[in-house]
C-alpha cells in the first residue's frame, strides 16, 4: 500500500532579513519558518561549549496561548540534528509562524523548520521528516486534514531522520494499541522517504535556476 500524503509545496528564501526562510505548505496547512543564526547571544544564555538553540512557535492569533508543547518537541528534535558544537557562544533561533491550520500542524512545523535550516546553511547531521497518522476504529489515515483528525480516536506524530531512517521522536495522544503503532511506523517510514524526495526535488530546482 502506497502512502498518500497531501500535496507539498515550498518556497525557499521568501524573506529578505532572516538568514534562511521557507514557506511550507502541506495540503492546506501552511507554516512560515525563518532562521537567524549563528548570531550573538546575551551573556546569561551563552553556553561556552555549544550554540544555544531557541525555537518559537507563533500561533495564527496572537491572543491564543503559546504552544510550548510544540516548541519543546521541535527544540529537542532540532538539538539532535544540528551540529551545535561548531558555533560555540552563539545562538541559532528558529521561528515558526502558523499561517493556516488544516491538521498535522506539528508535522508541517517540523518539516518547515528543517527546510529553513537547510536554506540558512546551518551545519546539520542529517535531515528530518515528520509524519502524522490518525487512528480510527478500523483504519489508519496518513496526513489527515482537520476534519478527519477530529473524528479519529487518536493520533501519533513520528519524526524520522534521513541518515539511518530511524525514528528520533514520537508523540501521541488518544487510545492506541500496539498494532496501531506498528502500522503507523511502517506507513510513516514510507511517507518520510516521499518527503525526502520532495526536499531533493525542490532544492534541485532552486540550484538549477540560480546557478
Amino acid at each position, binding site marked *: 500500500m502506497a502512502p498518500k500524503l497531501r500535496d507539498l509545496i515550498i518556497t525557499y528564501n521568501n524573506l529578505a532579513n532572516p538568514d534562511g526562510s521557507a514557506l511550507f505548505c502541506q495540503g492546506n496547512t501552511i507554516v512560515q519558518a525563518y532562521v537567524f543564526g549563528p548570531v550573538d547571544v546575551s551573556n546569561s544564555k551563552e553556553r561556552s561549549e555549544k550554540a544555544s538553540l531557541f525555537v518559537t512557535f507563533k500561533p495564527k492569533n496572537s491572543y491564543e496561548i503559546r504552544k510550548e508543547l510544540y516548541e519543546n518537541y521541535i527544540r529537542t528534535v532540532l538539538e539532535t540534528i544540528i*551540529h551545535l558544537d561548531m558555533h560555540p557562544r552563539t545562538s541559532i533561533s528558529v521561528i515558526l509562524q502558523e499561517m493556516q491550520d488544516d491538521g498535522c500542524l506539528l508535522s508541517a512545523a517540523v518539516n518547515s523548520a528543517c527546510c529553513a535550516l537547510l536554506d540558512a546553511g546551518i551545519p546539520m547531521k542529517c535531515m528530518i521528516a515528520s509524519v502524522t497518522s490518525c487512528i480510527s476504529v478500523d483504519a489508519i489515515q496518513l496526513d489527515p486534514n482537520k476534519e478527519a483528525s477530529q473524528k479519529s480516536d487518536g493520533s501519533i506524530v513520528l519524526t524520522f531522520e534521513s541518515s539511518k531512517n530511524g525514528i528520533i521522536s514520537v508523540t501521541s495522544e488518544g487510545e492506541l494499541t500496539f498494532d496501531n503503532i506498528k502500522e503507523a511506523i511502517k506507513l510513516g517510514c514510507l511517507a518520510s522517504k516521499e518527503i525526502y524526495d520532495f526536499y531533493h526535488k525542490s532544492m534541485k530546482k532552486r540550484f538549477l535556476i540560480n546557478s
Partner: protein
Amino acid sequence: MTDTIVFPGFSIKSLIDEENEAKDKKIVIGPGLKRQINDVRAIKCGILRSRTSNNLIVYWIDSHQKRYVAVRGERVIGVVVGKGAMSVNVDIGTSELASLSLLAFESATKRNRPNIQLGDLVYARILSANKDMKTELICVTSQMKKDGLGVLPQGGFMISVPLRVCRRLLSPGCKLIEILGSKFKYEITVGLNGRIWIRSPSITETIYIVNTFLSVEDKDEQGMLDLYKQITDKFQVIVR
C-alpha cells in the same frame, strides 16, 4: 561528480573514491564537509565542487548562505564600531565583533597610529579565525606592506549581498567588473563577507552599478552573458 547537489548526512566518500582512484592525490576537505571516522559527510545543502591543483584536490560545498563565518586568510569589509587604546572592534557580519590592532597598519608605530574613526569602513584580511576565540584582523601583508588593505576612503557606498554573489564576482570566469569598468569610471572593493564597496563620480552611476550587482544572484551562465551584452550595447563611453 562535481555539480552534484548534496544534502546534510549525504556521504561523499564513494564520490571521492571514484574520482581519486588512479591519481593518488592528497584530499583537502573544505567548508560544508566533515570527516567522521572513516567517512566524509556533507553538513550543508548545496553544490559539491572540487578543484585540482598540483598534488591535492580540494572539495567544498557552495551553498546559499547569507551569514558569514570567518575563515583565515579571506579579505573582508568591516565597519568600525568600537575603539580602544591599541585596537578597534570591527563588525564583519559574523556572530561576534572582530578586533583589529592599530599596529597592524603599514608604517604604524606606537607613536604614529593610523587615524580611524567610529563608522569607518576597513578592508582587512583575517589573521586568525577560530570558533573559540575572537577573530583577529590585519591590514598589512607579511612583508608589512599595505597591498590595498586599510581604511576605505570617504564618499563610497556599501551594499550587502548574499555570500555567493561576492564569490561569483571574484571568480576568474566572471567578467562583470571589467565590463562595467569599460563603460564607467568607478572604484570597487569586494569583501568575501557579502559586502561590496563602490565609489563612482555620480549618484546615478552608483545606483546603476549597485542594481547590476544585486541582479546577479538569480542569473545562470546564459543570463550573465545577456547582462554583459546589455551593458555593452546600452552605454557609450564619453571622454570628458
